[in-house]
């Protein structure tokens, strides 16, 4: 009996690991075709873009909590976007620092009476400001209620039909807004779209404008860069091609305001409000039997700082895993529901089995194989095969992400960067990914045990800014 269990476990871990990597490889192939087609079409469209100045109006929502070091430069960068019709709404979510004072001082804000529509319930709004200097800028000063609550307050105050959430610690490229709203102009059923998040550590920003792309020293952030490339360049492109995308980064995504309001807005009290909203929108639209698309396009770019120390990274990943658990659990009715197609029958189970419970199986697999090898109940052949599937195919997937980057954007333009990233793509499979899985497992366990869901405060350096500061971000990239 024990032998049969051991054999069954060996087969399970091997098949699970292989299956996971095969799905990733499938997504890479899908992304490769999609990205090539997309790049060619974008190149053509850019011939027209030169002459176009009619655009869909967008409300850019910037939730801010204790962002005194960076908020002025973020707003300045948003004011410089190459876009004709947009407003910026900064929501100061009860910061305990001088965020609101900095805004008042730097943008000539004057208080106006609060008279906006409370389409979504939020914590109390204390004051609303407009800028004498920049008519497109408004600021809401409210009591602390979390990021989702701040975004809901922003939605209440928004005056345009599209809303774009941008993290207060992020920098948009000047043409990013123009690009990210494009799906709404060509697809009447588009309800959500997201762009790529890139890691800014090691790059340089002056007055809110990215002036040089670079890489930070050390391997930790480089590993994260490879992870982001994997997540954005094939993960999201692949799922988007199947209209089964279950996460758009809260750091940079656009939605139709009315649909978000009808679906109840961002859910407060969750850790992954961005993912939860996307999954809920899927559920909501399918329940309404309305055609819709939620897409991802790779060229609108938002730059953000990644944790540069292990403790912050751990906090972030634990939080992300809890957010994933919450999002899936809160919208579990999508799972195998009739009429949900690829989303309910493939993407949701994939997220559940491989993303949510993946760390559990992965870590259990490593423990089982290594212990078995030492004690003797796992043969070296099985162990070798397991590591080949887990680590070897992992290397292949990571370097493929680098290839996708190279055929599309090649943003890291110095050959030395390429070499360093290739080395990172190989090395991240030996230790880094396993540590990340361990932290994700911690997140999973904490979520299952219903541990406290408050925001963590990872320390950031903002060394890429001319004026450095420390700030925190609460979104899942």
């Amino acid at each position: 009996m024990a032998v049969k269990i051991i054999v069954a476990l060996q087969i399970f871990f091997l098949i699970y690991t292989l299956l996971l990597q095969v799905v990733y490889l499938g997504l890479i192939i899908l992304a490769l075709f999609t990205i090539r087609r997309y790049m060619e079409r974008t190149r053509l469209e850019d011939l027209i873009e030169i002459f176009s100045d009619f655009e869909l109006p967008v409300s850019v929502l910037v939730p801010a909590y204790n962002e005194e070091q960076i908020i002025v430069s973020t707003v300045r960068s948003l004011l410089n976007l190459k876009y004709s019709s947009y407003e910026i709404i900064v929501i100061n979510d009860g910061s305990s620092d001088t965020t609101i004072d900095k805004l008042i001082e730097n943008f000539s804000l004057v208080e106006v009476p609060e008279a906006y529509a409370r389409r979504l319930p939020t914590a109390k709004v204390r004051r609303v400001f407009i800028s004498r200097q920049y008519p497109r800028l408004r600021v809401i000063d409210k009591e602390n209620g979390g990021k989702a609550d701040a975004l809901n307050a922003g939605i209440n105050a928004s005056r345009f039909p599209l809303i774009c959430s941008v993290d207060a610690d992020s920098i948009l490229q000047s043409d990013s807004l123009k690009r990210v709203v494009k799906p709404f102009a060509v697809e009447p059923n588009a309800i959500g779209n997201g762009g790529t998040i890139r890691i800014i550590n090691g790059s340089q920003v002056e007055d809110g404008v990215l002036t040089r792309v670079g890489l930070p020293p050390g391997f930790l952030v480089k590993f994260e860069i490879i992870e982001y490339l994997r997540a954005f360049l094939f993960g999201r492109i692949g799922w988007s091609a199947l209209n089964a995308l279950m996460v758009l980064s809260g750091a940079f995504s656009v939605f139709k305001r009315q649909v978000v309001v009808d679906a109840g807005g961002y859910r407060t009290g969750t850790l992954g409000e961005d993912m939860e909203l996307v999954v809920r929108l899927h559920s909501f639209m399918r329940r309404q039997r309305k055609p819709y698309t939620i897409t991802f396009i790779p060229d609108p770019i938002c730059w953000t700082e990644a944790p540069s120390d292990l403790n912050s990274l751990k906090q972030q990943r634990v939080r992300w895993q809890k957010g994933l658990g919450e999002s899936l659990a809160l919208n579990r009715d999508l799972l195998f529901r009739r009429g949900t197609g690829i989303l309910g029958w493939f993407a949701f189970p994939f997220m559940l089995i491989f993303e949510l419970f993946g760390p559990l199986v992965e870590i259990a697999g490593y423990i089982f194989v290594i212990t078995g090898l030492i004690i003797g109940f796992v043969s070296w052949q099985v162990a070798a095969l397991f590591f080949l599937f887990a680590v070897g195919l992992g290397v292949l997937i990571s370097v493929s992400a680098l290839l996708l980057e190279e055929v599309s954007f090649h943003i890291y333009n110095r050959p030395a960067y390429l070499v360093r990233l290739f080395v990172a793509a190989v090395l991240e499979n030996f230790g880094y990914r396993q540590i990340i899985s361990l932290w994700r497992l911690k997140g999973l366990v904490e979520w299952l045990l219903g541990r406290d869901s408050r925001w963590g405060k990872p320390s950031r350096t903002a060394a890429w800014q001319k004026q450095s500061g420390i700030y925190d971000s609460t979104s899942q990239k």
Partner: protein
Amino acid sequence: MEGTRVMPVFYNHVPALISIVAAAIGFFALAILGMIVYIRARTERQTRREKAWMERWYAYLAGNLVDASPPRPLAFSRRQLPSFVMAWNRFMEDITGETEANLIELGYRMKLHIWAQKKLRSGSLFERGLAMLTLGNLGDRSQWSEISRIAQFDDSVLGYLACRALVRIDTHQAAPLVIPVLIHRSTWPAEWRAMLLKEIGAEAIEPFLSAEIEKVSAEILPGVLDFISLIPESQATAVISRFLTPDQDPEVLAAALRALKRSGGQKLLPRVKELLRHPYWPVRVQAVAVLGNLAQRDDVSLLLGMLSDENWWVRFRAAEGLVKLPFMTREAIEALKQQVEDRYGRDILEECIREREAYDPAWQ
């Protein structure tokens, strides 16, 4: 090795399987590295080369803006031609008048039309797009039928570039062909379509737009009504009035009012006023917005009444309209505010007053 005894066939093959998988992973990883290095080297070379070429083309083209007869002909290889075509087109998009004629003459002399004619049929997707842009900017009629075919049947960007080329080649002849395509093809962004309709010209599009608007499906009609503001006001008013009836589909009604807001049309104001009590709030919002734009002194009470509408957007547009009325003084609006009994109406009016004060300190 208990497992080994249970699955002998499997384990007998494992060493071979390991070797094969390991070799395959190693091979593919190295192959990907090779591809990355190759792509990077090629891209860098291309970028450097094209940058240098572009600088040369820009200098040459700038030198020939005034006079199309170059002091010495510019020699370039076949490989360099597409980048020159790009540079030439970029210049063409930015200039008008005599200098445009000079550049067209130069384009023909450089045989850009030959390149474009060839690439239109046999080039890559990008080359075909660039070819149409070039033929359009040159005003080359030789490929009219092929470009017309693409315009009518291709709903991608290529189709749009074809429409654009036709308009550039011969606006008059292109209008009957292109306008229906632009009206019906909702897969192109409205701003692209509006831009091209604008380029064709208000007088030219009016008869087609008036006729085609009757044929479009209810689904795309609201989008098409947005284009009405592109035709002269008097004709626009006539078209809009056809849709401004209370029994009309609410989405269409809202779109017609939106078009009226853009194009103006005092004549339709009585019809607009009738819609202020429409049960569908987007209609009321648009009606109030039109009224805010066109209101006379007598209409102030109507706008004031809309401040107590149940919908925030209606109240907001009413307040915005009141505050922006050209004859509305600071003192007059304050007096009006005192008349508003509805709390929400007073609040929104106060907000709009304060906003106007902030943006327009000279407002008295």
